[in-house]
């Protein structure tokens, strides 16, 4: 489907190395003692192992595992994360600051957003994606400003305000760190509520 026409944009020569590292880097050591689940479960063991209630599972993915390597497919070096660190702050993107607008009226047009959000600075990019089934607006937009202050102003002014009679929420799209406490194993907390700094992300 989609990857029939994949286009080469980036090049990572160290694929094999990255895959080898993945186990050490990414695998949470707390494998669930419960019934054997597909490998892919490990991606979420950090959180799920702490939950007492058993999950209602459904799907063939639970009775077959032909893709044992799936955990390594997404392995990535730290270099590819933009400054993932331990604070919870908006993350700058390559060319600017991206905000997410949600609650957008399904009949909204790009111009409606341009008019409202252009007030806070020049919009470098605007994605107003459509519902693939209905063809109407899906309900969110991603907007890029060049400067932090412009994006911040858009968030401050428009979050909770209305566009086309509908209340919208506006927030940053990217964060420079996890919104769970970095050392969470049992009780994930919002990062902003934590009492002390957790150790910096493991580098190796």
């Amino acid at each position, binding site marked *: 489907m989609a990857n029939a026409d994949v286009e080469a944009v*980036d090049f990572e020569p160290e694929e094999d190395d990255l895959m080898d590292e993945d186990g050490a880097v990414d695998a949470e050591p707390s494998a669930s003692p419960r019934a054997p689940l597909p490998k*892919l479960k490990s991606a979420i063991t950090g*959180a799920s192992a702490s939950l007492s209630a058993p999950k209602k599972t459904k799907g063939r993915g639970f009775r077959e595992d032909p893709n044992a390597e799936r955990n390594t497919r997404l392995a990535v070096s730290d270099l590819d994360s933009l400054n993932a660190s331990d604070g919870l702050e908006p993350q700058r993107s390559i060319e600017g600051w991206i905000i997410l607008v949600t609650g957008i009226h399904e009949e909204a047009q790009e111009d409606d957003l341009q008019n409202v959000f252009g007030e806070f600075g020049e919009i470098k990019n605007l994605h107003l994606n459509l519902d693939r089934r209905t063809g109407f607006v899906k309900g969110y937009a991603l907007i890029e400003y060049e400067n932090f202050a412009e994006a911040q102003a858009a968030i401050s002014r428009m979050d909770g305000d209305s566009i086309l009679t509908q209340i919208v929420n506006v927030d940053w799209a990217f964060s420079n760190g996890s*919104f769970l406490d970095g050392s969470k194993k049992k009780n994930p907390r*919002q990062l902003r509520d934590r009492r002390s700094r957790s150790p910096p992300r493991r580098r190796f």
Partner: protein
Amino acid sequence: MAGEEENSEFYLRYYVGHKGKFGHEFLEFEFRPDGKLRYANNSNYKNDTIIRKEVYVTPAVVRECRRIITESEIMKEDDQNWPEPDRIGRQELEIVMGNEHISFTTSKIGSLVDVQGSKDPEGLRIFYYLVQDLKCFVFSLISLHFKIKPI
């Protein structure tokens, strides 16, 4: 930003790919419970390339992703009568929301004709559109953040 819903667990992973004469070509992305969005796209067509990207998204982005999934009602579906993955390719959709965990697999779906001709057109249609909406969301996030063209 903080709200009840963010405390309930969330995980999403989508994979589509096949193994053929250009090796293992696939596209995969996942939203991890801590907000990390990971994206990988591998094609060996013409020249060896692999794209791997990851970035943390805010709870607002995760919330929107959850909304898209919830409104699709995919969690009510079952892949039992969907076409099995085959030599042409496979798709996997794994979602954890609250205490529900689905892990669906099926073949690639070329178009709605494939959906209509299947044994579970209603369910497969929901899957078909949800996957497109999710890909659309993720591609926007990735392309805006990294300034790459995902496909």
